[in-house]
């Protein structure tokens, strides 16, 4: 029992597979719905999957004096927050104009 648990301790590959699954689910949310807020939800999930990869590589990689992976994840979280704020403000601004949040109907600039 103990041997089995030792053999299946989570490795870097486990985290990468989880991150890949999360990335694909984010892509699914962003691509399969024609709704602006679903697309933003999907993009947030993509960014979270990338962050999980940074943290996993930092933890499993060679030890370094600088916590680079953690720093990149922190900055990425800050940038994702800025993206969400501006994105949702855009959704509200566009909603005022078109009275819908369906991205297929934002067609004024279509050639």
């Amino acid at each position, binding site marked *: 029992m103990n041997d089995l648990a030792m053999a299946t301790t989570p490795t870097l*590959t486990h985290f990468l597979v989880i991150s890949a699954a999360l990335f694909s689910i984010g892509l699914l949310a962003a691509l399969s719905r024609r709704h602006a807020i679903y697309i933003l939800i999907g993009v947030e999930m993509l960014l979270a999957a990338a962050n999980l990869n940074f943290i996993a590589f930092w933890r499993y990689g060679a030890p370094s004096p600088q916590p680079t992976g953690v720093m990149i994840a922190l900055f990425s979280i800050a940038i994702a927050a800025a993206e969400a704020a501006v994105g949702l403000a855009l959704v509200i601004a566009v909603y005022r104009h078109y009275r819908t949040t369906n991205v297929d109907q934002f067609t004024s600039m279509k050639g």
Partner: protein
Amino acid sequence: MSTVAFFAIAIFTLAAALAAASFSKLIHAALCLALAFIGIAAFYFSLGAEFVGLAQVFIYVGAVAVLIVFTILLTRRESDAPVQFKWSGAVVALAVFAGLIWAIFKSPLPGGAAPAVAPLTVKQIGESLMTSYVWPLQCVGLLLTGALIGAVVLVMDEKP
């Protein structure tokens, strides 16, 4: 970190993320997104990045999820039909997933458990932010200020 805990968190996170992607009611999707973010924060805690996990909970669950819920409530109309699901998106997502899995198992990755390292303290993170990463920190501060002002300007009512 034990395997049982890893798989429990993994199943919780992926189930919440799938629910967020598949619920046709937007408000349910947003709340499931908050659950998925909590699962990701649990991964950060288990990987020894407690500060990032806390930041994740504060920023994503505390701010971004609430912001999304507010936007849904502000843009909701009674006549809105449920958002349809496009299967072409699912095909693309599956193809990307297959490609990523292929790449992961092709790459020469370090196997085995994580190397034992001294726990990362908040003091260390603060010192790094103030020495090696001071320029990125200033840039992020500028970006957040710009984003805040931009968001307010975007939704401000135009005076006639």
